[in-house]
C-alpha cells in the first residue's frame, strides 16, 4: 500500500488554520493507483515503488540548447545528479543558471525548438525517449510540478475545484461524488479555509498564497513520487511564503514524496532542503548535503554567494562581499570553467580558462566543479577573495592596464 495513513494529532501542525483537521485523512480515502484497482490508465511505464531500489530520479549528462535570434543558447550543459526517495533536493541558481530549464526537461515540457540530449531516468526508465502518451501517464501522477506564478498556471476560466478534479481524473476512474469529496479534502489539506465553497471559485478570487496552495493541492492529488516546485514562493510576500513552505513540509511528511525545490533564495533552501545543488551558467557548480554546502562550500561561486548575502539576524557594518562581473552569456560561454572570469582563484593560466573542471569529491556526499575544490573549501573567505574594490571614480589614465571595473 503506497498511501501513508497518519492522522495528525499535533494541533500545532495545522498552524493557525483550524480547517485543516478535516483533511488529515484524505489519503485514506483515495484508493491506490497502479494496483489495477479501477485505474484505467495503468500503463506501467515505470516500475513501481516497491520494485525499484535505485535512485528515484537520475539525470545523466543532460544538455539543453535553444536556437534564438542571437545564436544558440546552451541553457544546460552536461548536467548529472540524482534525487533519492523521501528527500528534498534544493536546486539553487540565479537567472540563466538553467535550473528552470532542467525541471521543464524532466517533465518534457520544453518547446520544440529545444534540443535535448542525455538521459533522465525515473526509476530506471528514460523519460527522454518516451512518447507523449507515455509521458502523460507520468506527469501529474508520478512527477508533478508546482509553478512559480499560480495565476498564469491556473486556467482562469475554470473553477479551482474543476482543475483539481481534472488532475485526479486524468489518472483515476472516480465517480463524481467521490471526486468532489477528494477535491474538498485536498483543499483542506493545504490549509484553505471553507474548502467546499472555495472549490467552486475561480482562480482570480483566490489570493496569491491561496492560489499557490491550490496548485500544490493539484500537484499532490495523485500522490506523486516527485514533486517539482519551481520557485514556488518567489512571487509571494514573505509571510505568505512561510505559509506555503509550511504546507510543502507537511505534505512531504505525509506523502514521503521527494521534492525538487528550485529557487534562487538560499534562505528558503536552508530551511527545507536535505541536499543542495548549486548551478551556474547551465552547469553544476556544487552538490552536497545542506550543511556541507552552507558551512563548507568548496566552490568559489558558492562561497562568494553565501558571503554576499546580507544577514538580517546580525549587525553588519562592513561592506557586503561581492562577486565581480556578471553571469555569462549562454551563447558565448567562456571556455573552460564558466565561472573563471569572475573567480578570484583563476590565476593559473591554461587551466581554468581552458579545461572544464571535473567534479571533485571532497567527501562521499559532496562534490564541486572546481580545479581547486579542496583548497577552496579549506581556505577562509578572505584568502580566496579580493579586497573590496573601490567603485567611486578612479581617474583612468591612458595606458592603464586595469580600466575601472565594469562590474555589476
Amino acid at each position, binding site marked *: 500500500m503506497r498511501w501513508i495513513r497518519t492522522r495528525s494529532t499535533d494541533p500545532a501542525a495545522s498552524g493557525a488554520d483550524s480547517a485543516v483537521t478535516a483533511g488529515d485523512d484524505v489519503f485514506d480515502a483515495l484508493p491506490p493507483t497502479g494496483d489495477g484497482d479501477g485505474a484505467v490508465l495503468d500503463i506501467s511505464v515505470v516500475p513501481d515503488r516497491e520494485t525499484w531500489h535505485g535512485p528515484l530520479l537520475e539525470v545523466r549528462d543532460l544538455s539543453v540548447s535553444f536556437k534564438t535570434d542571437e545564436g544558440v543558447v546552451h541553457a544546460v550543459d552536461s548536467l548529472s545528479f540524482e534525487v533519492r526517495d523521501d528527500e528534498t533536493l534544493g536546486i539553487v541558481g540565479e537567472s540563466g543558471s538553467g535550473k528552470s530549464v532542467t525541471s521543464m526537461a524532466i517533465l518534457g515540457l520544453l518547446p520544440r525548438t529545444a534540443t535535448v540530449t542525455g538521459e533522465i531516468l525515473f526509476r530506471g526508465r528514460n523519460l527522454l525517449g518516451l512518447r507523449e502518451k507515455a509521458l502523460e501517464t507520468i506527469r501529474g501522477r508520478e512527477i508533478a510540478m508546482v509553478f512559480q506564478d499560480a495565476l498564469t498556471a491556473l486556467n482562469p476560466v475554470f473553477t479551482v475545484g474543476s482543475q483539481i478534479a481534472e488532475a485526479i481524473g486524468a489518472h483515476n476512474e472516480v465517480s463524481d461524488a467521490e471526486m468532489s469529496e477528494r477535491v474538498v479534502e485536498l483543499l483542506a489539506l493545504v490549509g484553505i479555509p471553507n474548502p467546499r465553497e472555495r472549490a467552486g471559485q475561480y482562480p482570480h478570487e483566490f489570493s496569491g498564497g491561496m492560489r499557490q496552495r491550490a496548485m500544490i493541492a493539484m500537484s499532490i492529488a495523485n500522490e506523486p513520487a516527485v514533486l517539482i516546485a519551481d520557485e514556488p514562493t518567489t512571487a509571494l510576500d514573505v509571510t505568505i511564503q512561510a505559509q506555503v513552505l509550511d504546507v510543502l513540509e507537511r505534505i512531504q511528511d505525509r506523502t514521503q514524496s521527494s521534492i525538487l525545490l528550485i529557487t534562487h533564495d538560499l534562505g528558503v533552501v536552508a530551511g527545507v532542503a536535505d541536499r543542495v545543488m548549486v548551478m551556474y551558467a547551465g552547469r553544476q557548480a556544487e552538490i552536497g548535503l545542506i550543511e556541507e554546502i552552507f558551512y563548507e562550500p568548496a566552490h568559489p561561486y558558492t562561497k562568494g554567494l553565501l558571503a554576499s548575502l546580507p544577514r538580517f539576524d546580525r549587525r553588519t557594518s562592513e561592506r557586503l562581499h561581492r562577486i*565581480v562581473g556578471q553571469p555569462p552569456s549562454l551563447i558565448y560561454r567562456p571556455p573552460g570553467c564558466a565561472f573563471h572570469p569572475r573567480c578570484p582563484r583563476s590565476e593559473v593560466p591554461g587551466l581554468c580558462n581552458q579545461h572544464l573542471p571535473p567534479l571533485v569529491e571532497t567527501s562521499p556526499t559532496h562534490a564541486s566543479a572546481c580545479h581547486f575544490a579542496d583548497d577552496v573549501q579549506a581556505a577562509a573567505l578572505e584568502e580566496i577573495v579580493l579586497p573590496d574594490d573601490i567603485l567611486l571614480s578612479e581617474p583612468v589614465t591612458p595606458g592603464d592596464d586595469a580600466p575601472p571595473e565594469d562590474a555589476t
Partner: protein
Amino acid sequence: MTIVESSPVDGAAPAGPPLLRVTDLVKEFALTGGLVRRRVGTVKAVSGVSFDVDRHQTLGVVGESGCGKSTTGRCVLQLLTPTSGSVEFEGVDLVGLGNRELRALRPRMQIVFQDPFASLNPRMTVESIISEPFRVHGRYKVDERARVKELMRLVGLRPEHVNRYPHEFSGGQRQRIGVARALALDPDLLVLDEPVSALDVSIQAGVVNLLEELQEALGLAYLFIAHDLAVVRHISDVVAVMYLGKIVEMAPSDELYENPAHPYTQALMSAVPVPDPRVQRQRERIILPGDPPSPVDPPSGCRFRTRCWHRQELQDAGTDTSICAEQEPLLEIHSSRGIGHQAACHFPEVREVV
C-alpha cells in the same frame, strides 16, 4: 497621530530641521465601477504616515505588498498627489506647491526604481538618459558629455559606453544607470523603491555597496523602500515597518531587529528565512493565518487585529482585547525600550525572533 521625533543616530544630534518631514500623509484611490463609473469604494493605500529623514541618514521602509510603502515613496516626490497631509522638504511643504516651484525643487530629490528593464527608455542611449535632467533644467550646457561620463564612472560603469542602449547592459548595470540619472542634478534626497529586488543575488551586493559608498561620498539621504529585511537592516539607520497603510513600528535599525515589539514585525521577521540551516531549523516560526485584509475595507481599530497571533494568545490567557477592535493604536514611544523606538500596539511586548 503623534508627530514622530527625529531619532538621533549614533548619538549625534540632528542639526536643524530634518531634510524631509512627512506628517499625516494620506493617499486614497477611488474605485470606480458600474456603467456610470460611480465611486464604489476607496483604496486606503496610505492612512496617516509620519516620519522624518535627516541629512545623510537612511530611513528604511519595509512591508509586504499592499502596505503602501511604494505609494508613500511616490507621494513624497509628488509623483502621486497626496490626498492629505504634508511633505516638508527643508521646511517647504511640497503638497499643494505650485508647478513652477515644485519643478525648481525637483533636482534636490530624485528616485531610483525597482525594475532595471522598465526604468530606462529602451530607445535612448545611456548618454541621453543620464543627460535628460540637464536638458530639462538647462544645466551643464557646455560640458554635458563630460559630466555624463563622470557620473558613469561614479556608479562604476565604463564611460566609453555612453552611446550604448539599455538592452546592451545587464540588470545590475542598468540599475547603475538609473542611479547615475538620479544623481545627475546633485540631489540631497534619494527615494529608492526596491532598488535591488529585481537583481540577481550576486549582483545585489554590488549595487548595495555602491549606494552606501555614494551616500558617504556625496552626503545623500535615502528613503529606502524594500521588502527584503536583510538588505534594509544592512543599509538603514532607522527602519519603519508598514502594514496596510500605516507604520506599525519604527526604531533605529539594530534596535528594531533585536527587540521588535509589534506582533506584526515579529511575525514578519520570523517568516524571513535565514540562509543558515542550523539557525533556520531551530527558529520558531510565527505563521500568520489567512491573507491581509483588503485596503478598501481595513479592519476597525488596529488593522492587524484580524491576523494578530499575540491577540489570540492574550485572549486565550483571558485578557480582554476588545480595545484592539475599538481603538486604533497610535505609534508611540515604547517606554521600556528608550529613545526612538515606537510601536503602534495596545499590548506591545518585545520578543526575539532572530
